[in-house]
């Protein structure tokens, strides 16, 4: 049957059919693969926690069982953001970014540094992962904030003295590959361990901005070609390690363990 393929009605019909067929194919595939992808994502997050804790070699890619085994050395619990007190609650399903968006789980962020990090809401309850392996004890704290294009999600590992950084990692971001995307670069991440977080007044001095400002104990080289991503990293750390973030918890933790 010959069709006049350039007639108006046929064009509309063809375009509609095309859209329906393609979207049906794509969405059914996406649904079919969703479960596998979520597992991968969760596994990747756990691997990142293990990596920043120093429990996983940089290049190693262990399977699910090995990750879960290693994860037994990490205790996860919830704390109250304002007081730093440990609170009861189910850790497994808790997503502090989601909680922050709800009325009962979060408050809107007012401080200047929160605006700089472009974090609009803060959760009332925060997650802490504590590494219990001897010699590698650390608190692993989730951090998030905006870079240039995307929200960066990651972890910062802080030693039990609540002052020295043990490592940093980002597990999700969409910064420009090769520029802001270099937050993934192992060489850059290697600059972090050993840096001191707080100044004598308890002010957060960790700084990855160009030019630095607080001296070699606190400054980290900015990423070249990625000024805005570097700023994002700095501000999100100043927020999450500051009084609106984990500082009350870290203060309390050191006070409890003898206080030095």
């Amino acid at each position: 049957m010959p069709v006049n393929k350039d007639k108006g009605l046929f064009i509309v019909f063809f375009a509609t059919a095309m859209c329906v067929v393609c979207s049906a194919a794509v969405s059914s595939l996406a649904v079919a693969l969703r479960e596998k992808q979520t597992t991968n994502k969760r596994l990747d997050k756990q691997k990142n926690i293990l990596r920043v804790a120093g429990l996983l070699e940089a290049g190693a890619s262990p399977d699910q069982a090995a990750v879960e085994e290693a994860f037994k050395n990490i205790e996860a619990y919830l704390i109250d953001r304002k007081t730093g007190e440990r609170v009861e609650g189910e850790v497994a399903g808790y997503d502090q970014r989601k909680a922050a968006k709800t009325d009962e789980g979060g408050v809107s962020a007012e401080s200047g540094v929160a605006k700089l990090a472009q974090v609009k809401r803060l959760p009332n309850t925060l997650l802490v992962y504590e590494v219990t392996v001897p010699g590698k004890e650390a608190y692993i704290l989730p951090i998030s904030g905006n870079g240039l294009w995307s929200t960066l999600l990651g972890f910062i590992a802080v030693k039990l003295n609540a002052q020295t950084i043990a490592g940093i990692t980002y597990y999700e971001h969409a910064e420009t590959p090769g520029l802001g995307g270099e937050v993934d670069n192992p060489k850059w991440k290697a600059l972090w361990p050993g840096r001191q977080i707080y100044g004598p007044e308890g002010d957060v001095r960790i700084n990855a901005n160009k030019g630095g400002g607080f001296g070699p104990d606190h400054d980290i080289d900015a990423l070249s070609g990625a000024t805005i991503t570097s700023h994002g990293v700095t501000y999100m750390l100043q927020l999450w390690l500051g009084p609106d973030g984990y500082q009350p918890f870290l203060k309390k933790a050191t006070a409890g363990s003898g206080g030095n």
Partner: protein
Amino acid sequence: MDKKTKKILVDPLHVENPITLQVLGICSALAVTTNLSTALVMCGALTFVLLGSNIVISCLRNYIPGSIRIIVQLTVIASLVIVADQVLKAFVYDVSKQLSVFVGLIITNCIVMGRAEAFAMANGPVDSALDGLSNAMGYNIILILVAAPREFFGFGTLLGHPIIDASESSWYVHNGMMVLSPAAFFIIGVLIWIQRAAAPSMVEED
């Protein structure tokens, strides 16, 4: 094999190579060739998309209205790219994270649309499939030729296996430039030079 089929199959590998002659698909050729494993996954994804889009568009070519043909081609290509991206995320998550946006950017890879518009719209599905395959192979060969030396000289490894002793005390100092994008330009430049020296037909007249 008749002459036409042979031409379809062989030309894109050398004298009609999509990267080195037509200089298409350069973006991904620069970005994903820092190591061989990401380059290979990218090759696989592009081969799938190019083959698929050529076959689908060739089958539909007698029905696609001329006035909306580009957007129809893009719809087909975009759907295939999403399929490739989703499958990679489900089965090789680590590599798909490294490839990040570049799988998605296959949509804008001019090789795919170029072949759809220039070949699949005018030829049958079998010829189009062969054309898609051979053009993908032309792209793959160049990607591998660029990625292998970059990984070897940049990291001292191939497919992640250490070839040169990579420790601090090693005699070999890694060539940091090979890891950066300009190295891909240099290697592609050298490849174009070699190809043109071997096949003068590739050299355009002034």
